[in-house]
């Protein structure tokens, strides 16, 4: 009950306080939800027209109920399914994977196993440029207390994902992990 009350309190806080004043993961959860709508997946990523959009969190869950709240019930016409994973092997059906900071020590093998068609890989791991170099697509960065993100447009394109060009405009960089 205390936990639920705390979440409710945070939710209330989120809705009543300014956006910028929301908690870090509240912002990141909202951004993940927005990535889902500004990225188009190839039709082959879904088995049927009614197949759910599967969002996965690999490692320790920093969001709690926030992600569920931000994604809502549907992305476009598809129902939303959120999976919390411990191992990268279980991410085969994920359309979007958020790699938690708990996995940053083994980022390279995790990314190697996740690199497959149709999966958007997002993380707020400490070494974002390393993350991008190894196939990470969107990395959260915090500049002067404000959460922003960098894009690895090339890696996303290789995975068959189509990122809305307008999204690139609000990103910090579209060449994350390249040319460095």
């Amino acid at each position: 009950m205390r936990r639920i009350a705390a979440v409710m309190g945070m939710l209330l806080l989120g809705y009543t306080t300014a956006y910028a004043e929301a908690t870090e993961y509240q912002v990141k959860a909202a951004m993940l939800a927005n990535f889902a709508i500004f990225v188009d997946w190839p039709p082959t990523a879904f088995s049927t027209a009614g197949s759910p959009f599967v969002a996965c969190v690999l490692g320790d869950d920093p969001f709690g109920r926030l992600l569920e709240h931000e994604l809502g019930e549907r992305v476009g016409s598809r129902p939303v399914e959120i999976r919390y994973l411990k191992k990268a092997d279980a991410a085969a059906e994920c359309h979007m994977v958020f790699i938690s900071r708990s996995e940053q020590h083994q980022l390279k093998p995790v990314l190697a196993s996740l690199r497959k068609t149709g999966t958007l890989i997002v993380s707020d791991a400490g070494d974002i440029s390393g993350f991008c170099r190894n196939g990470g697509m969107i990395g959260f960065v915090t500049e002067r207390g404000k959460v922003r993100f960098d894009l690895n447009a090339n890696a996303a394109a290789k995975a068959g994902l189509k990122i809305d060009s307008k999204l690139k405009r609000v990103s910090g960089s579209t060449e994350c992990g390249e040319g460095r």
Partner: protein
Amino acid sequence: MQAFRYVHNWPIQRKLLLIILSTIVVSLLLVMAGIVSYELVTYRNRLAQEMAKVGGFIAANSAPTLAFDDAQTAQEILNTLVGSQSVAVAALYTTDGRIFASYVRPGRQTVAVPPTPGPDGTRFVGRTLELVSPVQKKGRRLGTLYLRADRATVYARLAGYAGILLVVYLAIGGGAFLLQRLLQRLVSEPLLRLSRTAESIAGGDLTAHVPVESADEIGQLAGAFNHMTAELAHSYADLEMRVQERTEKLTSALQKLRTETEERIHAVEELRKRERLLIQQSRLAAMGEMLANISHQWRQPLNVLGLKVQELGLTYKFGQLSEELLDGNVAKAMEIIQHMSQTINDFQEYLTPNKEKTRFSVDQVIAKTVSLIRENFQNQNIGIKTISADDPQITGFPNEYGQVLLNLFMNSRDAFLERGITEAQITVRSWVENERAVITITDNAGGVKEEILDKIFDAYFTTKELGKGTGVGLFMSKNIIEQNMGGRLSVRNVNGGAEFKIEV
């Protein structure tokens, strides 16, 4: 109506200019009126469409800025509206109704951005259009876009059209001058030339000519005009020529008539004079002939008379003059003198023209005539033979008839003498043929030359030596037989001689 009457007296050139200019001005005004009314009627729809388009574009572009809280980019996007003349106010609101970014057209800063967007949709408020549109992605609402447009665009466009119209009118004003010069050259001048030519033709100059410079109506008119003038000149000349011709013909006909009349009068006078002369000449000739014949007749009796007178003288000398001899010689002398006197009477009677037609015997006239000339002809060795049959009778003038015969005999004798014919012979035949008394007098003097055969009866025609013939004889003979007695005198050549034929 007053204005129309005023324009009515304008020169054609100015009328044409008026028509052209008014056509241009009116059509331009109509076009402008059409454009303006179209603008005014459709601007709402067009404005709504334009706003929807602009709204859609801004919403799509500003969606990620709302999603990822990038107010700076959102402001940049709204600032691009400065290129749009329609949008006066624009604003983006977050889902919780906060103003995220806003734009007010430069120069319209007094206009306030509404604190809340109001319900979604398009609506007209007074003269402005308000568009409230959701900003969303994949069915997820990210915020709200507010746009407000006014009529500035329409007014700006109408001002633009007015400017174009003004420029065009100024251009027309300049073009009118050039157009006037062109019209003057193309229309007025040819017409004026035509008019001037018409005036000079009316003044009587039919040689006036209009140069034809074009194939248009004026050119055709000029052509027709020239043709008409030429026709007129031609007709006029033709008419004058005909009048002159007629006058000349009439004059010459009159002259000819006068001359002919004079000639005829003259000819008639001449003929009368000639006839009188002829009659006189023929009388003189006949008297000459008679005198010659009388002298021939008298020669022998005169000789005998001389002998008888000498015999009286000689017998007296020799004493042989008896009373018997004296009586006998005196009686004989008296007889001879009686005979000679008779001869004169005969000739006198012969020469006296008959006053009335009488019935007479042709043979008797032949015998009488021959007796008058026999002695004379015998001296010249010319024989006369008479062959008579039927004893033809004629009603007419016996003395004239006899004169004709005498004339013909003399003619033959002249021919004999002239040609030196020996054994000269004249044969006279008479008979009745078809109840007509016919006489032929034939000689053997060689005949008449064929080429003059039809001329020998003409007056004054003669073949004789100068001084011998008068050319009157045969002409008078023909006159007597044909005019006085209703007969016919003809000539032909037969067996080395001429044959004259009288039919009465």
